[in-house]
């Protein structure tokens, strides 16, 4: 998927099962801290596990940590698909 190699994809654009590297986190300071502590740091590997129905939350995996987050928060995170 050459077209998906770009740096600037939204986390929510990944397809379930796809892996990516985090390229940027555009959250305000408080949320940035929390996301970083959960493993949302630039350069970290992330995998989209599944998507909730009716535009529900995203289930992602960062190393040994699984996190669910809403589309709104997922849109703050840029990734480059692998």
């Amino acid at each position, binding site marked *: 998927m050459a077209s998906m190699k770009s740096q600037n994809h939204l986390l929510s654009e990944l397809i379930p099962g796809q892996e990516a590297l985090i390229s940027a986190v555009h959250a305000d300071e408080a949320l940035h801290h*929390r996301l970083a502590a959960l493993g949302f740091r630039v350069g970290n590997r992330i995998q989209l596990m599944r998507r*909730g129905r*009716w535009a529900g939350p995203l289930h992602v995996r960062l190393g040994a*940590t699984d996190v669910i987050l809403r589309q709104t928060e997922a849109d703050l995170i840029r990734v480059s698909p692998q």
Partner: protein
Amino acid sequence: MKRIALLGMPNTGKSTLFNRLTGSSARVANWAGVTVDLASAKILLGGHMAEMVDLPGIYDLHGFSDDEKVVRHLLEGHPIDLLAVVVNATQIERQLPLVLQVRSLGLPAALLLNMADEAKRNGVEVDCARLAARLGMPVVLLSAKYGVGQPEAMRVLAQALTAASDIGPARRAQMQAVLSDDVRIEQETAAMMAEAVTMPMQLPEQVSDRIDRLALHPWLGLPLFFLAMLLLFQAVFWLGGPLQQGLTWLFDQLRQLALEPAAAQLPDFFHGLLLDGVYSGFVTVAAFVPLIILFFFFIALVEDSGYLARAAFLTDALMAKLGLDGRSFVMVLMGFGCNVPAVMGTRMMRARPLRLLSMLVIPLSLCSARLQVFLFIVSAIFAPAQAPWVIFGFYLVSFLTMIVTALLFRGRFKSSEPFVVELPPWRVPTLRQVTMRGWLEVRHFLSRATRFIVLGVIAIWLLTNLPLGATPGSMDTYAGQLGALFAPLLAPIGIDEKLAVALMFGFVAKEVMIGAFAVIYGMSGDALSQEFARSMDWVQAVSFMLFTLIYTPCISTIATIKTESKSAAFATLAVVWPMALAWLASFVFYQGMRQLLA
């Protein structure tokens, strides 16, 4: 006495460890300068008594969430001799920065690597000696869930505590001046990981993932969850029903065999006040206890297994439309058993508006106490074939009132709380872990609710027995006069003075209403059912039940809302709004039906 604080991220098993180390001796207390209650306990460490405090789970010592502020304020305002940092060994890479933040405070610290069992299964190997050397603090690998490594942890904590000397004002100043240095911390984490920790390249395919494929299935996920909840409620009633009856029988025996003879010499007034007031009040609370214990037991079970976080995933999209989130849904479900633990359960939410909106919605769920009243009335008024459908209809109405309430108030309680929730792997909760947690919650509930309920019952007893000389429960008593006072308000919805008095009883606890019917009508059992069928038609009965379903949370729920929200104004809203909604719903139904059937 020296003081140890337990610090760590959420989902590290920190509280499990706390419970294990302290036994069940913990008490919940208020700390100066800190807005939340924290659990603490005295433990024997190396021949000395020490106090252990369980701090709220935090992701970041320099973060800005309420919990993170609480931890900082506590560290600043209270002397801590030793910080025990709890880390989930499987997630050590992500959690090590917090340990480094703690180390830079300059306080004596020890690292407790919890969930050793899970880490081992996942192929994570930690060289504790090397890590300890790099960190400059003792490191212990343990499993709080199974108690593995506990003696070693106690020994290390005792040693570290003995070695810990008083930190002077200079060290304290250093601690306060500590600034986060994220880049340095990240580099140091990477160096330590390379030296002391072996991580598998890819985590092995887990049983957890296979369960998730089913439990979080796009189509099957929700139905499966509802089925599981249905079974859970069945289990609570199946187990709790006999326990409740047994307890009631026991209290009856106690009253007849011991209390009645003992109080026989007292004047009538005090005899009634003590036995029908105080004792009844105590029994009302006590009858709640088996259900409360079971509910907390099952909440702990569902939460510790990891299903609760999954339910939040499954329902979040729907709840978002109501201004709530996935976690509110879980608590609403719990509310169908008993509103009180459900209201307490909203503690897991961080944003206050979201918590408040959830607390406004939860009391509208048809709790087991209301179900008892409905079963009594429905069986008196409706044919056996219709009865289950009428009950089912009330469950639908209950959901409907919640949706209406959430839609009306979501603008008032708007929260921009980001929904980012950690999804723990599936785990098998141990019995010890679940009972321990359940027990702590139960004790907390009892200590707060007991006095309130007893006082409420005394007040209602006085209302229905004064002035002196009036027939108890009759229209001559203050309660009867109040009933007459409310008549103009209740007549348009088909509720007479006698039922109005019963509604006052229902304010204390809904199941008291059945007892109230008996006192007010002066009959019981089948005779009472027949009197019901004779004195009201089905429209009146449904209108009365609609009102009973919605009109007010019971006293213990209100008390819990008041304590949890720390706001008398909000607790008032939580009573006034349902009251208005109840009247409106009953009015529309009663008058509409009267027009239709005229």
